[in-house]
């Protein structure tokens, strides 16, 4: 019943999951779809932008390190083209130049929230809801 309620609450909000690992994309899809979201997938930034251009997306969950337009570039592009579109950046860690974590960089360039891999379904679900709630407030 709770799941049905949530499904109604988030009825057909579209969430774009971007990760070069299909298993991760699928897992996230499995975790958040029960909350009533429409989940679309992209394997890199280019595909993600294309999807955004073709249809209305309410939230983007993106990995950072990806071939063919990485998560940072994607966030920057989204911030430019779709300023109100929230993005959750996720990463398994690491960074550039030794000192800057990818997630920190992602936050700097405009990610709404960040998510460290690996994460539990609870963590991602709550973060997705949080991000969409804040967007709806705006």
């Amino acid at each position, binding site marked *: 019943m709770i799941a049905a309620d949530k499904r109604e609450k988030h009825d057909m909000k579209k969430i774009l999951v971007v990760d070069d*690992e299909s*298993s*991760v994309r699928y*897992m*996230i899809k*499995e*975790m958040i779809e029960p909350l009533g979201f429409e989940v679309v997938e992209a394997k890199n930034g280019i595909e993600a932008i294309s999807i955004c251009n073709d249809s209305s997306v309410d939230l983007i969950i993106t*990995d950072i*390190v990806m071939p063919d337009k990485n998560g940072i570039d994607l966030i920057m592009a989204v911030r430019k083209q779709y300023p109100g579109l929230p993005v959750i950046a996720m*990463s*398994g*860690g*690491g*960074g550039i130049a*030794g*000192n800057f*974590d990818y997630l920190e960089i992602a936050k700097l360039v405009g990610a709404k929230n960040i998510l*460290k*891999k*690996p*994460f*539990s*379904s609870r963590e991602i679900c709550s973060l997705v809801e949080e991000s969409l709630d804040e967007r709806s407030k705006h």
Partner: protein
Amino acid sequence: MMIILKGNHTKQSAPKGSNPYGFKRIFKYFLPLFIPLAVFEFAIAFYIYYIEVTRNEEIHAAKDIFYIQQSKLSIKLEIDTIISDLLVVSQHRELASAANKSNVIETDGLSRELMVFSQEKGLYDQVRFIDYRGMERVRINYIGGKSVVVPQNELQDKKNRYYFYDSIRLNRGEVFVSPLDLNIENGKIELPYKPTIRFATPVYNSYGKKIGVVVLNYLASRLIDNFVRSMAGSEGHSMIVNADSYWLRSNDSEQEWGFMLNHRRKFKDKFPKVWEQISGSGSGQLYSSDGLFTFDSINPLEDSKNHARRTVDASTSDLNDKAATGYYWKIVAWVPDKAVKSRNWMAARKVVFASALLFLLTVLGSWLIALAWTRRLEVEVKQKESEEKYRTLFEASNDAIMILNKDMFIDCNQSTLQMFGFESRDQFIGKHPGDISPPRQENGVDSSVVANQRVMDAYNNEKIIFEWLHCRVDGRIFNAEVLLTPMVLGGQRVLQAIVRDISERKRVENELARFKSTLDKALDCVFMFDPETLMFFYVNQGAINQVGYGFNELMQMRPYDIKPEYDESMFRSVIDPLIKGPMHAITFETIHQHKDGRLIPVEIFLQYLAPEGEIPRFVAFARDLTERQKINRQLRHAQKMEAIGQLTGGIAHDFNNMLTAINGYTEMANKEAAQYDNKLIIRYLDHVKKSGKRAQDLVAQMLAFSRGGEIELKPIMVVPLIKESVERIASTSLPNINIEYHMDDVNLIAMTNQILLHQMLMNLCVNAGDAMDGKGNIIIGCSRECGVAQICSSCQASFSGDYIKIDVTDTGGGISSAQLERVFDPFFTTKEVGKGTGMGLSIVHGVMHDHGGHILVKSLPGKGTTISLLFPDVK
């Protein structure tokens, strides 16, 4: 007064030959000196000889004259005595009284008286009284020293004897003196020869009637002996010659008594010319070819003072024609010509000997004087040459040479004028040292004051040398070195000042000093050594500091003495190619050994320098590599850590991606299993979930290591935490290991992170257990360490201060020294493939240094290993 050094004298060549002065040169002075002296000496010698001979002759002649006169006097005295005796006897009272009464004479008393007389006198051979008829009336014979009266019957008739005949004719007081002859007894010459003179005088009685004669036979040997004694001092032959030129006395007795003996030898036969002169004059002295004759005449009758008349008996054949004045003897002293010549020769010998000695002395003296003159001349020549040389040197010297009298210049050379810029010597002379100096010296002292002091010092000492600032006429100041030497010139004490312009030298010295100072201050060590002997001839202060030897010690050493890796042949094999070229320099690393034995890694830049006109040498720059090697090690380590960090970060990122899927799908699978209530699957998935969680923690730490500085540290009481962690580790991973705790202070607090501390203990304890093959003891210690000063075993940095120390000690096989250097490298492991990641100690390294702490490793192969974690004490 001005003293000028004179020169321009004719140069004289040095004497040739071994004799430094040359015989010819000496003869040149010897002969003019010797010849006049020798001639003069000969003249003097001859004169002395002449004087000597003349003087000798005069002395001897005078002596002979003296002896002749002395003997003549003695003879006369003797005759006077006899005549006196005769007259006394003739007037004897017995005779007078005996003849008074009658012509009969009483002879007894007379005999006694005359015997007494004869005995007393001892001079007369016979004393007789002969009466007027010629009969002996009394006769006293003197025989053997005793007077004897001749008996009457032995008395003889003497009326025919010449002495009776001549004397009976005499008047009263007149005396008959017979010739001196040999006594004849009984018609024969009495032997031994008895020279005799008969003295007779007539005897008168009281009536004035002549009654006979008294005759005294005088023994003339006494007279002759007296004569010989008187003539004893004469060197000549002493002779008595009668008027007929017969010898009455001669040194040759064979010549005597020629008129009585048959040989008839006469003086005039032997010396006819001499006799002519002697017989013709009373006395005198004459030279003839036979010698020197000194003579005098004795006339026994004329010379008698006591009698008015004298006569001689002329009855004998020899004396018949003789008047009374013709009765004389000649006493002669004859020095034969041989003796005269011998005497002269003696005088000549003395003179010749003395002259020869004088001649030798003259030769020697002349030679010495000539030698001295020659030497003096040589000295003078040398002095002149020396003066000339000195003047030449004086003028030719590049140094300024000046003569100072007191504090005023009295002479100088040409260089002085050039050095100081004077146009002429006159312009310079009379100046004072202060006049050619700037007002003040480099150290600010007044030039004139100090110059006067220096001049005084030089006068009072041997010589002084000092540096001085001088000033040219044009005002240019230059550095000079001044040598002041006191000396005597022309009898005056003066100072010679030699001034050398050392501006260039000072410049070079300053450059050298700067160069040396630069070299000494250089951090690198500079060694210079000779290519042949390899001996160092220069090292800078850096080199001295590096190897610990003193400069003088190093000057006795060679490069291979401080390079333990090299001996001489090895070192020459390094430098020989540099000498031959074409490459003259090489860089290589080696080791220097400090004097205390310490080894110093060095990088040598060695270069062979042989600039044209300079002495070839090697210069070596040695750089201490100790610090560089340490920094390089640290840098390499840091680079390695950074690379590993990046790698780890990348791996962690991928791991997280994978864990995302693993954990996520496990979670979803678990939910699905719960829907079907499949407990077994749920339990399995829980194990997967736990491992996933642990993997997630590990990756989080790996990320922490790779990023660093992100760990949240807080003060934690470490002892309880250590116990909890270790017990958890022991229960799961070290089932057969005995754990000991050495943790007395439970209140120790360190800034750390619970997870990280657990992770580090886990790594250390698992390693310890592996080192003991899962069996043995692990000792866990925790304590506060104050005043630690160590070098970190992982980062190699030295650190000090107070620390909280956690020790994990095992009793395993230990770690070899080669492995010790690598244990902190990521992925370094000694474990079997699949059993160890090699990340354990590198994570501990990273975590501890993120804590601001350090790690110490102590390991003894075969004994075990202790790894200590040192956290900064935050009390």
